[in-house]
């Protein structure tokens, strides 16, 4: 069996570094930062890391229904979502993730758009 991205990119530690770098970008974005003003970042980073671990093919599971529930009250706009995707891609590229893997991760995350953006489903 081919090794998962989770294994190839350093397991939990590797993913955790990517998430951390990603949120540095997100919180510096004028468009995105307001969404996080009242959020307990420790909890968010924890969930986000597990979610990323899942995207990388590692041991964690979040259902689309869970994604929908946690994002429903945030009224995320298509613009904010687009910005987030751009930052996500930039973070992955900076972390020297293989372009084919970047494409797959971005596509996987894009497939979940209807569960994240308000009124998209």
């Amino acid at each position: 069996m081919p090794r998962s991205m989770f294994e190839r990119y350093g397991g939990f530690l590797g993913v955790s570094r990517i998430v951390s770098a990603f949120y540095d970008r997100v919180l510096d974005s004028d468009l995105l930062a307001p969404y996080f003003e009242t959020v307990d970042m420790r909890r968010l980073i924890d969930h986000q890391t597990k979610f990323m671990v899942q995207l990388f093919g590692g041991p964690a599971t979040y259902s689309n229904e869970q994604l929908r529930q946690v994002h429903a009250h945030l009224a995320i706009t298509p613009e904010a979502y687009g910005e987030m995707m751009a930052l996500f891609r930039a973070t992955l590229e900076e972390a020297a993730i293989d372009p084919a893997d970047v494409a797959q991760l971005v596509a996987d995350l894009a497939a979940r758009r209807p569960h994240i953006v308000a009124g998209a489903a």
Partner: protein
Amino acid sequence: MMDLARFNALLLESVGVGLAVLEPDTLTVRFANRRFQEWFGSVIGRSLAELVPAIDDDARGRLTAGGSVALQHEVKPARRAIALGLQLSCAEQGDTAVVIVEAQNVSKLRELEYMVESYAQMVEKQNRTLRREKERAEKLLLNIMPRTVYEEIKAFGVAAPQRYETATILLLDFVGFTPMAVSREPTALVSELNDIFTAFDRIAEQFGCERIKTAGDAYMAVSGVPEPTPDHAQNIAKAALLFRRYLEKRNQSREPRWLCRIGIGTGPVVGSIVGIQKYVYDIFGPGVNLAARLETLCGPMEILLSDATRRLIAAEFRTAERGLQDLRGFGPTPVFALEAGLEALPFEP
């Protein structure tokens, strides 16, 4: 070339650590580098104690005594809250005492700590699930093999066949089960059989016997395997009498009547796991064969045994001679019927 003082000043302003110098009594900020002011705003001339609630009387006391104090504080200079670790310590500057404050951004550390904790909990939860699964699997395996054999497999991966010098084996089946099985509703029949075998299991366990297997309406139990005991024959005799008494009581109030035949043999036995994928624990030996031959000789509700068993239990049980019987594989063999215990048996299922 840059002179040292200018270099120091530049360094002070550009490091990622927040630095401040306070007056020792009032904790008024006399100097703060750029990072410190980013986090705390314009603090020069204000007391840090006003800004940081964690600087309480206790902390001030320790500082006055010349010690150092470590504190947690959270600031929100922009949209994003930052967790700071503050270290306050006394120092001499020329001949005046000052308090030096170092502030470090520990947000990432807090996030990681939280994540470690959260993962530890996730692992713990998975461990609990695994443990439950393991217990369930163990319980299933203990249904098909004795605990000592299971422990051996668990420790070594295999269980070696074991020879027991002497053990007593009981074999039971029911008179007319086959016609009963075809003439009655199968679920009801199986449920009754299940009832009866469950009662037998309880009795067997009570007397240090081990149920080896059931096959259709046949029930096999042994004493002396896998743990040798000098009382194997007595144990099986007691169990046999109680099996019969249980059926007698049951038959008084219910149809159909279940009539058993019980053969008992004593002799050397080999106990072993048989099979790789679908394994069962089974026993082999002349005692097993003898029990099987005697069982086929039995009339309804009769318990037959050989002379070897009879001699072992003679002091405690009443038996009756059934003469010489020609048993396949054994030749002419003296056979005895077990009638009752000389003392009342303690257990009522």
